């Protein structure tokens, strides 16, 4: 696994550094190739998560990585020149100025769940609403939503559980904190440092 992890990090870093990040040249034409490469690489950067790991007698937090994908976002406040509907590559302005979205979040724990015995791999999907708070949402925005997490746990004969989540986001919604309350017997909450670029 360590080798896999190293390879994964290497691929992301290579992708970001092989495209020119910062230049003095006079070419100001939009570069769609760089856009595709950097966007893809940036989506591979996971959000760090602390997940509750508990049984009847013990509890602790387990470190995990979560990837943020947004297949669909519908903006409440688009101007007349742009579409309110976006898929996967989500313009931050149309998102944080008020929108609703469907999200998919694969999650992988960096160690076994000692107490709950749940599988390390999970997949959450759900919907959330983003509300602007300050500077039309660019400085601060908030979200609330519901989700269902698919996570196998043979010890409790569970295959998933519903949950609710709330978040607060900063600087264009690129960074934030998310809190999830999960209605599960063994993973009752998670706290995530949200990272997503577009």
């Amino acid at each position: 696994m360590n080798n896999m992890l190293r390879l994964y990090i290497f691929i992301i870093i290579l992708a970001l550094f092989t495209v020119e990040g910062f230049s003095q040249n006079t070419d100001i034409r939009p570069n769609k190739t760089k856009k595709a490469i950097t966007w893809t690489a940036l989506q591979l950067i996971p959000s760090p998560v602390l997940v509750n790991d508990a049984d009847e007698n013990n509890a602790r937090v387990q470190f995990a990585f979560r990837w943020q994908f947004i297949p669909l976002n519908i903006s409440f406040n688009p101007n007349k020149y742009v579409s309110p509907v976006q898929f996967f590559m989500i313009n931050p302005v149309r998102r944080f100025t008020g929108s609703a979205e469907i999200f998919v979040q694969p999650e992988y724990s960096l160690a076994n769940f000692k107490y709950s015995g749940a599988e390390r791999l999970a997949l959450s999907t759900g919907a959330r609403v983003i509300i602007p708070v300050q500077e039309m949402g660019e400085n601060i925005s908030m979200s609330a939503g519901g989700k269902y997490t698919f996570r196998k746990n043979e010890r409790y004969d569970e295959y998933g559980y519903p949950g609710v989540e709330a978040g607060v986001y900063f600087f264009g919604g690129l960074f934030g904190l998310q809190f999830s309350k999960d209605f599960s017997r063994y993973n009752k909450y998670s706290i995530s440092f949200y990272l997503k670029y577009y």
Partner: protein
Amino acid sequence: MRKVLLIIILFVSVLLQGCGILRITMSNLADSITDEPRKVTKIKNPVKDSVKISVLWAGHSTSLVQIYDKVLLFDPIFNKRFGGVILRRTELGLDLNALKQLDYIFVSHTHIDHMSFGSLSYLEDKFPKATLIFPKGGEYYLPDYDFKMVRVDNYESQYVSYIGRPVMIDGLKVTPVYALHTGGRYGFDVYSWKEPGATGYIIEYKDAVLYYAGDTGYEKNAFKKIGSKFSIDVAIVPVGPCRNCDSTGFWHHTSSIEALELLKDVKANYMIPVHYGASRYISDENRPRDVLRDLLETTAYEDLKDRVKILDVGEQIIWRELEEVPSGY
């Protein structure tokens, strides 16, 4: 656990490496927490009678321009902090309560130091009938406003021939012109993706011609062409950020010496330097102005001395039928 920390540090380092805005933000953060913007004197009646052209520099690039009976505001940023974190060193030099008329708002590009959603919201409440003008590409970084929103097609000026097709907007002739700059707003979309959404503007109304250069690097061919096509009365030109201001500017910005070359190229009667004094990017916020002053004392540029009008933040200069009157508050 150490491995996990190392991984996180690596990820964050990669992010910061690619994002100039974040680097600037981090370097300014400490100052932003402890400092306050310097106070300035503000004019009580920014809109005047009997004016051909007036320019009130409100700080950074925000400029209130009056051309006869029309009142224009360029790149309005009223915030105490750019992007919510970078403190402006000098407060806004415009008394918003004293502003009783506004007809047009121009956004030159979508970077955080030139376009603020909160400032536009304020203006939307106060002047809902104003027209908001922005370049193509800017629409991706603008929410919906009650203003009449007009997107200017700057493809030709940016990528083909330096001068775009003019549009008439309620009596004002607006021509997009080349700016060596990009759109975008959040790091990679600026520096790597090079999103479209930056322009300069030539504004013509009656017999007055104003050039607002937006943010731009120095591109001699472009500015010579602009100068050959238009008889510019007043050019509002960005100066800096720059560390070596007597050589080249920092990433698609004109240095002090390049701004003077720009003035020679566009052959404007007068130039007003902007885009300094508010934010500390890579050197002291007023270094571009100081070097500009020094250059105007040299033999190479002393003939431009009377044409370069260096204003204080909040100061207004008025031309009545091209006869200059003393600047003041």
